[in-house]
C-alpha cells in the first residue's frame, strides 16, 4: 500500500494530478492541522496522501475535476482575502466573501468530495491522537500480540 512505485512496466500508468493541483491539495490537507490545533507530524503522511489521491482517481477519474476546481476555488478566495480566510471558509463556513449562490453551491460540492474526505483521511492517518486515544476506526493500530500492550486503550480493573 505504501509502495507507490510498485508497478509492472506493462501496466497502464497510475493516474496522477498536475503538480500544481496536487500541491494545492496537499496544502489544504496540511491546513487541517492548524485549523483544529492538531499536533501530529503531517510530513509523515505525505506519501500516503499521494497514494490516497491515486486511489480516488483510480476509482473515480472525474475526481481530477473536483481537485482542480477546489484548487481554483482556493486560489480565487485567497486572491480576494488571504489563504487562511479561504481555509476558514472551507472548514468552518466563516464567510467574509459574500459568495453568490452558484459559488455557495460549488463550495458545498467541493467540501463533500474534497475537504470532508481529507478530514476523514487525516484522522485515519493519526490526527485523532490529539484527543487521547491510541486507536481509531480507519487507523492501522497494529496487531493484537500476546504479552504486548494492546494497540488500543484497555479497561482497567476488570477481571482478566
Amino acid at each position: 500500500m505504501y509502495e507507490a512505485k510498485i508497478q509492472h512496466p506493462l501496466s497502464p500508468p497510475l493516474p496522477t494530478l498536475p503538480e500544481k493541483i496536487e500541491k494545492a491539495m496537499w496544502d489544504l490537507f496540511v491546513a487541517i492541522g492548524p485549523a483544529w490545533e492538531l499536533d501530529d507530524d503531517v510530513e509523515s503522511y505525505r506519501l500516503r496522501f499521494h497514494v490516497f489521491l491515486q486511489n480516488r482517481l483510480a476509482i473515480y477519474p472525474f475526481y481530477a475535476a473536483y481537485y482542480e476546481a477546489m484548487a481554483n476555488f482556493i486560489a480565487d478566495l485567497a486572491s480576494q482575502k488571504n489563504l487562511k480566510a479561504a481555509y476558514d471558509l472551507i472548514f468552518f463556513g466563516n464567510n467574509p466573501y459574500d459568495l453568490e449562490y452558484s459559488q455557495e453551491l460549488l463550495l458545498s460540492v467541493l467540501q463533500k468530495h474534497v475537504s470532508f474526505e481529507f478530514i476523514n483521511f487525516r484522522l485515519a492517518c493519526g490526527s485523532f491522537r490529539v484527543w487521547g486515544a491510541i486507536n481509531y476506526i480507519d487507523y492501522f493500530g497494529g496487531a493484537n500480540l500476546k504479552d504486548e500492550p494492546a494497540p488500543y486503550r484497555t479497561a482497567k480493573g476488570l477481571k482478566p
Partner: protein
Amino acid sequence: MKKVETLIIGSGVVAAALSKRLLEKNPNMSILILEAGSRWKTKDFGVWTDWVATGNDPIAPNSGNPMYDHAYPDRNNYIWGENASVGQTQMPLEGGRAMVYGGSTVVWGGWSLRRKPEDFYLYTNTGQGLDWLFNYDELEPYYCQSEDYLAVSGDSKDELPVMWRSQPYPFHAFPYQLQDQPVGEALQSLGYNYMHMPIARRGVSNIPSRHAQCQTTGTCDYCPFGARFAACDYMDDFRQWNDLPNFDVRLGAVVLELRMSSKRRVAGVTYRDTASGEIVEVDADRVIVAAGTLESPKLLLRSKSRYWQNGVGNDTDNVGRYLITHPYVLYSGELAKNPLRLQPEMDFPTLMTRYFDSPEEQAKGKYVLVNISPSVELSYSSMMQAGWTRKEIDKAIPGPWPFQIHSMIEIFGEHKNHISNLERLSHLGMHQSRVDFTAPSTYNDRVAEVGNVVASVMEKMGGKMTSYMTSWRCDHAASTCRMSKDPKDGVVDGDLRVHGVDNLYVCSNAVFPNLGAINPTVTVTAIAFRLGDHLNSAA
C-alpha cells in the same frame, strides 16, 4: 451432461469447509459448487479508501449492492421492491444475507460463540421444539476445527468448566477496550459475569498462514487485509495453493430444481446460467444443499416430481416451517458523563455477558448482552465536517453522549412461520421469497424484561436507558429444514441427510432445531466439518 461426485449448492462457509474436508482426503474428488450470485472484490485498497474518505460502507444494506435482497414492496413509499412479507411481523431480508461468492461471510461480524450444552436439549429441558441429534460433547472437536478455520481470537478460560474445550482458541483474546470499563464495572457490581467476545479476527501464532493478521483498523465490514474470515478468500486460496484438478466453482448459476431419479435418489440439478440464459443439467453422486435458511427449503419445495409431489422431503409438511431468527435488540440510553473520554477505537466488541444465556432462562428464551463497538456514539469526523472548532469539540467530549447495549434473544420455532417460493424472480433471477412470520405472543413481555436488566446496567453506569427497538432482520434465520429423529417432525436426520433420500443432504442454519442466544456461524462450520467426516467415512 457433466457428472460430478459432490455437488454443493451455495458458496458460503459450509461449501468452503466441507469441500476442504473432502479434498483433504481425496484431492482428485470432483466437486462443483454452484453460486447464484457473482464475485464481490475483497481486500481492495481503492474500495477501502473510498469508505474511509466518504464514510459510505461498501457493504451497508442500503449500498445498492446486488448481493442483497431489495426491500419489500412498499406502495406508500413508492418502493417497487421484491419478496413478500405476509406475516404480522416483518422479517427484513435486505442486508441480512448475501447472495454472492462467499455467501454471508463476506459481510458477517465474526462473533464466534459456541452453543452451550443445554442448547442441544431444548425439548428435554423445556418441552418446546426438538432436541438436536448430537450434543456438545460430540460437536466439541468440530468446534475446535471451526474456530481454527475461522481464525477466532478468544479467551479459552472464559467459559470453563461448563463449556469444556479440547483445544485452546487459535489466537488469544482481544483485551477489553477502555469503552468496556463502565459496562464491565456495572455488570460486576450487579453480579453478572462477563467474558471476552470470541471474534473471527486472525491473530498471531507460531503456525504460518498466508492470511493476514488483524491490524485493528476498525473497518471490519470491509477489511483491507482479509483478516476477518470470508469464505471466498479461503476458497480462492485453497484452490490457488493446492493441486485440485476437479474442484470448480460456478458463479451466476441459479439452481432451479433438484432432479430425482427415484423416491430415494437425487440424480442432479438443473440450473440457469444467468450470463447466457442457458438451462444446464448437472448430475451428481450426491448433492449438498448449503444455500442458507431461506433458499435451501425453497429449493426442496419447488423440486416437485411424481416421487415427491409436495417437494423433496416434504411429505410431512416440515420444509420451510419453524422459521426463526434472532430478534436483535438495540437498547439506547444516555451516558451522562464521559470522564474516560471514551471514543470508538475499534469496530468490533470485546466484552459481552452470557449470564442470561443459562439453563434458568431457557424456557423463556435465553439472551446475551453485548457492549457493542462503538457504544459511545462520538465522531470527530462528523464534528469537524460540521465546522465545530477545536474548543467546541473539546467541550463536547466529556458528555453527555448517546450509548447503546445490544442483545440477541432466543425465540422458538412455530409451524405457522414459513418460507416459500413466489413465482416472480428477483434481480438475481432467483425465485422471490414469501415470508410468513409472526413474532411469538410473549415477545413484547420478554424484550421489556430484558430491558429492565439493561436499564439497571445503564443506571449503574451513571446513565439511563431511553428507548429500545428490535430488528427482526434475517441474519441468523434458521430451522426451516430442522433435524429430527422422526421424519414426521423434521426434514433431515442426524447426518443431515434428507429423510427418505439416500444421497441428498442439507447443511446450513436451516437444520438447527433451535438457535440458542448466539450467532450460528461457528456451529454451522462445525457441522460442515462433521458432515465432511461422515461423507469421507462412507466413501
